[in-house]
């Protein structure tokens, strides 16, 4: 019943978190983890514990900001929100990621060796 696990490429987790947060409202760590799990159809297996160092580092860098609040189940939870700077950063990373992944996809899709 284990899902096929793809190791996360370095920096991918940041990208996933930022992407999740671009959807709008501030989210706590658990919600972010759940969202990533849901939207990647559980294809990317995130060890949820690894999420937090990433969050803290991005907060340190100023891409996201955090605030304590009350959760749906009336508990104290830390909510993260994208900053303007974070949004900017996400766009540039997204662009280069797309370029990179399409290049990789193109390479993998080729049948014959390219003529040089």
């Amino acid at each position, binding site marked *: 019943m284990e899902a096929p696990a793809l190791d996360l490429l370095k920096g991918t987790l940041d990208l996933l978190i930022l992407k999740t947060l671009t959807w709008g409202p501030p989210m706590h760590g658990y919600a972010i983890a759940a969202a990533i799990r849901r939207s990647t159809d559980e294809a990317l297996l995130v060890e*949820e514990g690894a999420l937090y160092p990433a969050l*803290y580092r991005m907060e*340190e860098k100023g891409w996201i900001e955090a605030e304590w609040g009350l959760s749906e189940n009336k508990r104290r939870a830390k909510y993260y929100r994208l900053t303007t700077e974070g949004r900017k950063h996400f766009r540039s990373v997204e662009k280069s990621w797309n370029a990179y992944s399409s290049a990789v996809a193109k390479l993998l899709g080729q049948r014959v060796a390219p003529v040089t």
Partner: protein
Amino acid sequence: MWQNGLMPHESAWRRYLRFWGANPEADVDDEFRFHLETKIEELRTRGLSPEEARREALRQFGPVTAPRAECVAVSRSRVKRRSRMEHLFDWLADLRYAVRVLRRTKASTAGAILILAAGIGVTTAVFTLLDRMIYAPLPVPKPSQLALVSQWEIGPHGERLGGKTFRYAEYVYLRDRSAAFSGLAAETTLVAHELHGHDVIETPAHADMVTANFFDVLGVRPFTGRAFTPADDVRSDASHVAVASYRFASRRYPLPQDAVGQIVYLQNIPFTIVGVMAPGFFGTEKGHDPDLYVPITTVRELVTGISFDEGAYVRPIGRLRPGIDLARAQSNLQLLWGQLLAADPAVTGISYGEAKHSPNDRIVCESGARGYVSTGDEQQRSLRLLGAIVTVLLLIGCANVACLLVARGAARQHETAIRLSLGAGRARILRQSFLESGVLALAGGAGALAVAVFGCRLLLVAFHWQKRPIEITPDVRVLAFTLAVSLLSAFLFGLAPAIQLLRGGRVPLTQEHSVAPFSSGKVLVSIEVALSLVLLAGAAVFVRSFQNLRSVPIGFVAENVSVVRIEPKYDDEKLPLPDVMQLVDSLRESAGIQSTTLANFVVFNDGRVSTSVHALDDPKSISTNDLRVAPGYWETLRIPLIAGRGFTPRDDEHSPKVAVLSETLAARLFPNRNPLGRRILMARATVEHKPGDEIEVVGVAKDTRFNTVSAPPPSLVYLPILQRSNWFSRGASLEVRSALAPAAVGAMVDALVRNAHLPWKVSPATAFTEEIGATLEDDYIRMQASSLFAALALVLIAFGLYGLMAYTVARRTREIGIRAAVGASTGRIVILILRQSVRLVAIGILIGIPGAIAAIRALSGLVFGLPPVDLVSLGAAAALLAAVGAAASFVPAWRAAHLNPVQALRVQ
């Protein structure tokens, strides 16, 4: 730990603690706990058992310890950085607040900055000169390795009797054998001047003569071209090379680098400039900057009339080898010196003949880090004295500023009380107070730099150093000094307001007007008075000393005597005596001239010739000054002749030699005998004298002071100028008694010289009284400077007292109103207020007396004709202070006495 069970709930007090600061661990734990608990809840809604849900949640979460540690670390560094930022913002906020407060009270701020700028400024100016003239290290690499080598005759108690320089050959002997130095260089104490035929040269160059390794030993490289090479030490035509100073090269040529290849004539000998030294290098002597450096061996050609090889004109400077200190170098040289003196002259090439070195001579190595200090002892003393004076003045200024701040702080007591009650820490309020002081002091310090440059210029003029190459623009050392002094002052004058602030905090908020006594103000004013007393007493001592000097009978009448120096136009020519005498005669007959005479130099000028004489029948020789004068000398200067006659035109080289003795010399040569008609011999003629060397005493003149006013009249022998056929090459001084101004007399001499087509230089005429005044220059500077600064201190005192009394009156308005209402007379109220200020001044004077007495005693070596502790000066200073104190507080007292009682009573 908590993977195994449910996470422990955070205790209430830990949350409470978080109110004061972030707690990264607790925050991270909270966050993780929330994640896991939410997950467990969700899994249980899917039907998992509590135990299964917990295990599944932990599995999905993965390892806990490492992420937790990472999160804590990230968030810790964040907290730390933020607290540092907050700290900085606090400081900035305080700084802004300080500036705002200072701007709100414009008058007292401006006053304080002005006082500080002046005080720190003059201190910086004096420091700059002290540094440039005495303390600053030479601008060369590792100056602390340099050693100045000299020899001294040592007295029986180890005291230094007289310093000597070396012969060149002696220097070479030491240089070649000493292992203590990585290099031993030398320069002469002689100077060569630029001279080229009869060319008129504007600001002729002067050259120092140095060994070829001079620049290497000092560790300086040329800016362009080359320095000397060992070959330049070898005497040949090729050694007619010169290295120019940057200052000279940029003064003489369009660009400094143009100097290379140029030819400069020194004593008519062409020297080719081969290099230019780096800017800022001025050789080894402070206050000097040779234009050119030439190889030392050229001395033989450049300086005629001395025997370079036999005379001692060389002073060595060496760079110590690492690990060798001055004492070791000195003993090394002393050892070599003993060997040199014992050695066979045939080996060393040094023959001493009669001029053997004294066995008491010792080699001395001193630190050469500061180079040679050329400033005279007297001037150094004056500078140091100035330093002390301006320091005291700065202290007074600080007390004054503190007074201003305290007075302002009193008005702010209410505000401080509110801030304290709102929870501001005492430390924060103290910091605030010192920050204000700091801002004030730095503003004052900035102004001080401008004051310092101006002050330096004034000092250079006062010391007659305008022409010396002294850089007065502030450098790093000066800036550091100013900054340090500013901060120190800030602490000093910030102390009183800070104490007051802290004490003010105890005043209950309900009281609108503080009743806290203004005691720190009183203490400050008393301190100011005490310090001023020291300054004033010092100034009084100098003023009285100067008066004494001016009233000393000098033995002749200097008023209405003009002095004109005539010299041949070119260094290598002489003044023909007959022409000069002709000039004297024609001048004597000119209108407006009472009498004219001639001497080889003017007494009280820096000229002085020492010799020794003895009576023909008594071989004990007596040292004396000797002055060559023309007929009419005593008449012109109105020096009474006690016995015999003066010189006449017939006392020339064809007649028997004659002399006039001063009273003192006559009494020493011929005690209890009539000197007239007796014969004396000059020292030079004593070994084997011819009958023609005997000199007959024809007159005795009353004693006169000679070079200084303060020293008693020395022995003096007058010889007829007409009896020296091989007479002066350097010129002579006309002394002219006339009611005309010196300038008019000078013009007359000029005209006569020009009309006779004589190739002479006529120096601008001076009044004889000026010549005497010039010898009192140091005393004059001390008197002027100490009086000026004492006057400044008085002004500060007056302001301080005025401010304090005005404040007191304002505070006692109600009380005064009541007194006036119940019938106190105007006089009584004035006295009431005055009494307070008089008491303050009196206390200050009492505190200051020991200091003032100590100062007077310390100065007693610098003053003339006063007892060691001059109570008159002390009394005068105290009286002046008291008078100024009374005057300063009279205005507020008067105002108090004329208050309208009704209005005064309304004041809360």
